């Protein structure tokens, strides 16, 4: 997908609208999912996705291929989300019910009921993390970006990303061990 995205990007830089349409079809679901998980609202996620692509097209000429197109686009989405976040309430945690509904409706990595319960508990605990650590978890685990790509999107050093992920895993492990953590 990466090679295809880069070649499409090169064509789009020359003004090829069909390549740009292909880029949208290729990436908009991931960007929407990323923003949807962060913002927690369907309408906000759709608006943020539209703003992200709205910023990406004029800046397409500045994309030099130093990173992958997906990473570059996630960077724009990240800054778009930060701008939107500053205009929202300082702390609007993700409703746990939404994650419970998503976990029950979506495909689960575990087949048994115990596994689904653990997943629901885990995703709810992720939303209790502080904002910076939560964004790091979203990019690295949910969006499957590498450590270097996550660091580039967040504008951090790779070691900082590793430190934040370590903190997140410690928190999740400690809280998941509590018998009633997911009932809160």
């Amino acid at each position, binding site marked *: 997908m990466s090679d295809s995205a880069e070649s499409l990007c090169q064509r*789009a*830089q*020359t*003004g*090829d*609208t069909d390549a*740009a*349409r292909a880029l*949208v*079809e290729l990436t*908009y*679901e991931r960007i*929407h*999912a990323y923003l*949807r*998980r962060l913002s927690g609202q*369907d309408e906000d*996620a*759709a608006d943020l*996705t*539209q703003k992200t*692509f*709205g*910023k*990406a*097209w*004029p*800046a*397409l*000429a*500045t994309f030099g291929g130093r990173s992958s197109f997906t990473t570059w686009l996630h*960077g724009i989405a990240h*800054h778009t989300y930060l701008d939107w976040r500053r205009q929202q309430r300082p702390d609007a945690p993700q409703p746990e019910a939404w*994650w419970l509904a*998503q*976990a029950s*409706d*979506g*495909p*689960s*990595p*575990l087949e048994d009921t115990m596994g689904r319960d*653990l*997943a629901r508990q*885990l*995703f709810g605990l*992720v939303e209790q993390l502080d904002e910076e650590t939560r964004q790091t*978890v979203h990019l690295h*685990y*949910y969006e*499957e970006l590498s450590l270097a790509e996550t660091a580039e999107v967040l*504008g951090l050093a790779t070691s900082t990303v590793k430190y934040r992920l370590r903190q997140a*895993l410690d928190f*999740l*492990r400690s809280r*998941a*061990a509590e018998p009633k953590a997911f009932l809160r």
Partner: protein
Amino acid sequence: MNDAQIEALLRHPPSLTPPAALKARLLNDIRLPRPGTPAGSTLLSLAPSFWRRWFPALSLGVLLLGCFIVVAWQTSQGLALRRENQSLRTALPDLDELRAEQAQLKSRLAAAGQGGLDPTERAELSRLREESARLTSRSAEVSALAAENKRLRAEMAAALAKAGLEAEPDPFADAQARAQRVNCVNNLKQIGLALRIWATDNQDVFPMDLLSASNGLVTPKILTCAGDTARVRASNWQEFNGSSVSYEYLSPGGNEQDPQAVLTRCPIHNNAGLCDGSVQMLNTNQQVGRIEGKWRIVNNPNP
């Protein structure tokens, strides 16, 4: 639950289906810039991240540059001061000489404060002042003696008149009259010389008036006879006018071909200046007379 299990769960988040209309909106919003057009607004939107990343390094660089500039400026100032110090040290041997000169100037200045004279000049000045005071006292004494002499002469004249005898002539008055006549001769000689100089420059012809020869006269004083008390002697040519001339110019427009012709004459002292430049002091038997249109010294028919 260990980390591997947690990570495995986190890598499989619940999938999300975007709204159906989102794709159409995104496709409809595609606005690709024309190739070669700079992405201005997006650059600005990405600028904060750039500055946040590079601000520490840039600020440190600016700080170091500022420090370098300050150090360079201080170094240049230090070098300039060092050069100045060096020049002052080289000028130090002249300091003693300058101090001696300054002391000498101060002593001279102190002397000037006492009148601007050195001791020998001050002694000379005091000697002259004493001499002046002595002469002043002598002058007063002379004046008193002259007044006494005049009073005694008047008494003697009165006594002689009462006794029917003739008054004794004043020897001082005779000497003064002789001196004035000699001075008159001298004046006529200078006037004759000026007229002859003028004639030499003008085809040996004398000028028509005395003022034409004024360039040859040193001062207008010589045009007034010392014995002429009726005229005011002019001290310079600005004060001079015709009324100051005591002498008669008898041969205007004449020439030097007749050396015995009378050129000028003093009617007071009966002196006659001739065309050859000589001056004759005429006695009571002589006078200036006109013979054949020329003025000459002739015998007085009525001495």
